[in-house]
């Protein structure tokens, strides 16, 4: 009886709100539209611009698509000259190549008749563009500079560090979830404690430890200090606590060694949690900046992030290469995100870690 009543009320109230847009609805869509522009726009803009020529990138005001000005070789001039549509005094339009700009006039030449030059006011000319994708932006830095090496270093660090992190963190989580032993609480508090100490406040002494091991300018100096993550131990432990104890007891009955129980029973069952940690670890390692910046000072051990930053510092004007390499740097993460988006967001929402 009361159920039907509540349903009737529900229908009645629904009708009241139907067809009636509140101002917050309009605002929401406006905000979302603006949000898409602001959040996604820069990356799309980066992608499009990384395909432009250097001249196209430096053009102001910029064009959205990679439209570059057509250039022609004119007899008697060393460099290719940009061509313009020039409106002449009698109203006809002619294609001329520009030699140089002098104030409000441009010195131009007819490509078909390179002998004479003419003076044209700059507002009478209009650029001729063509759609041209500059793949060289992507190929050149990989060939001429060490980006392939940086890419390799980054991949090595990411893969090896993630494997080490997964193994030692899952071992610790296994011990802290399956067993009862003396000092367990102490170990737990110890792990919580390390959660509270970010790298930024112990930079100097960690550098000291790494230097003592002779790992300065070595990829291992980047991999090892962050290998044991308290968040990882916690994530895995919370998950392993939910596993049925009977399974472990059964394995023990069958005379499985503790190590075998760990890798044949517990690890396969914890794959969802391990996958979340793996994704996070890959993200952390690929994007890591401050610590590699301190440890790696030779260019042959640079990671992609450090290499990109250094490259940008050296060649501030070479934005075409900087943009394309920025694209290369963000692409792996973007692909992972596209495939595992739901996984990542639920992982963050349920653990509150990043």
């Amino acid at each position, binding site marked *: 009886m009361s159920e039907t009543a509540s349903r009737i*009320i529900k229908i009645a*109230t629904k009708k009241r709100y139907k067809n009636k847009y*509140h101002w*917050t609805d309009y605002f*929401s*869509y406006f*905000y*979302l539209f603006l949000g898409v522009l602001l*959040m996604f726009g820069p*990356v799309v803009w980066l992608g499009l611009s990384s395909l432009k020529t250097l001249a196209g990138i430096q053009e*102001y*005001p*910029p064009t959205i698509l990679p439209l570059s000005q057509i250039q022609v070789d004119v007899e008697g001039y060393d460099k290719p000259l940009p061509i313009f549509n020039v409106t002449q005094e009698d109203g006809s339009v002619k294609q001329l190549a520009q030699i140089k700009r002098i104030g409000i006039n441009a010195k131009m030449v007819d490509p078909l008749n390179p002998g004479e030059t003419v003076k044209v006011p700059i507002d009478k000319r209009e650029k001729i563009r063509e759609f041209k994708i500059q793949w060289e932006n992507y190929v050149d830095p990989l060939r001429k500079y060490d980006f392939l090496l940086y890419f390799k270093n980054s991949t090595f660090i990411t893969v090896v560090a993630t494997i080490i992190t997964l193994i030692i*963190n899952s071992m*610790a989580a296994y*011990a802290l979830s399956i*067993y009862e*032993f003396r000092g367990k609480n102490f*170990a737990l508090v110890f*792990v919580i404690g*390390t*959660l509270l*100490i*970010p790298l*930024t*406040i*112990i*930079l*100097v*002494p*960690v*550098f*000291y*430890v790494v*230097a003592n091991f002779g790992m300065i300018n070595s990829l291992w100096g980047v991999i090892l200090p*962050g290998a044991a993550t308290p*968040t990882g131990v*916690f994530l895995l432990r919370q998950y392993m606590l939910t596993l049925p104890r009977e399974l472990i007891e059964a394995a023990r009955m069958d005379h499985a*060694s*503790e*190590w*075998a129980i*760990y890798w044949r029973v517990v690890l396969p069952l914890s794959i969802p949690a391990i996958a979340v940690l793996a994704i996070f670890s890959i993200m952390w390692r690929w*994007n890591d*900046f401050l610590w590699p910046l301190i440890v790696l000072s030779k260019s042959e051990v640079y990671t992609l*992030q450090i290499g*990109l930053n250094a490259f*940008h510092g050296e060649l501030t004007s070479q934005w075409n290469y*900087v943009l394309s390499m*920025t694209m290369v740097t*963000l692409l792996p993460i*973007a692909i992972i*995100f596209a495939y595992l*988006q739901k996984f*990542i*967001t639920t992982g*963050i929402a349920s653990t*509150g*870690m*990043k």
Partner: protein
Amino acid sequence: MENIRNQTKNFFLRILNIPFAFLMHAIDLIMWPIQKIIGVRNMPYIFLLPNLIFFGLFVIIPLVANFFFSLSSGDELLFAERELPTTKQYDQLFDCESYLNPNTCTEDFFWRGVYNTIFFVVFQVGLMIFFSVLTAVILNKKIIGRGFFRSVFFFPVLLSPVVVGLIWQWILLKNGAFNAIIESYGGDKVSFLTDPSWAMASVIFVSIWAHMGFYTLIVLAGLQAIPPNLYEAAEMDGTSRERIFFRITLPLLMPNLLVVFILASIKGVQTFDEIYVLTGGGPGTSTSLIVQYIFTTGFASSGSVQNFGLAAAASMVLGVVLLFLTLMQLYFSRNKESKHQEI
């Protein structure tokens, strides 16, 4: 089709499994005798050992060593060659005629960093909470394409600080896209990154852009935990939406907002990389924060010497601030039993 895909997937998983299983069997050859000797009861210590060694080497020992570094002076990294003990570093760090005026301090760079950090954190955290709540509330509504919009707002979180810094440095250039948009609407060009007063605003903006999605997600989780019957009851009573927001949503969201506030403050105080790429702390020192000071004095001192002691002392100061924030977090998360208490 589906079957074939599954088979290939299984095939690849099996191939990947071979080196893994091989490694695990090999380790078992060592673990089995150990278990025989020390017994099952002591095995958890073996499992804990590698992780604890790493923690000890790279967290606990450094934490203790940090005290020694901050209390010793000299240019050498080795303890044996450092002068011990001395409070020289702290004296130098806190040598000010007036703490409110960084120019009167010996380490004026440090104090500018402190004030910049305070300014940065106040505005960044404040605005970030405002916008993440706004975004989360909108994303929680029944809107078309919700999944798409969610990922759009979340996407920048995954970008590396270098990528974020470079993208925005390029967009905020004097002849960049932002200025082109401003000029097309009749405004004047702005030097976003080279004008000291604009640089700080730009840095705060970029940092919010990069991290907002993360906090939006936490707020969103909080919103979804609010029981829907409260809203239904309010709607039946004909409560206005504004009132529903201020009387139901916001109060019930408070525990989450507190977590967001403290997490964002902890992260905000440690901000370094995006700013380092974006402005390098400049122009002048107008956007350099505390971590930038630690990095520069300890590792990137231009020219002469790297002052490890001074850097360690400054990181002790930072550590005290973080400790305070963390204790606050523990206190509140214990009180409110919030779900998200990890960093």
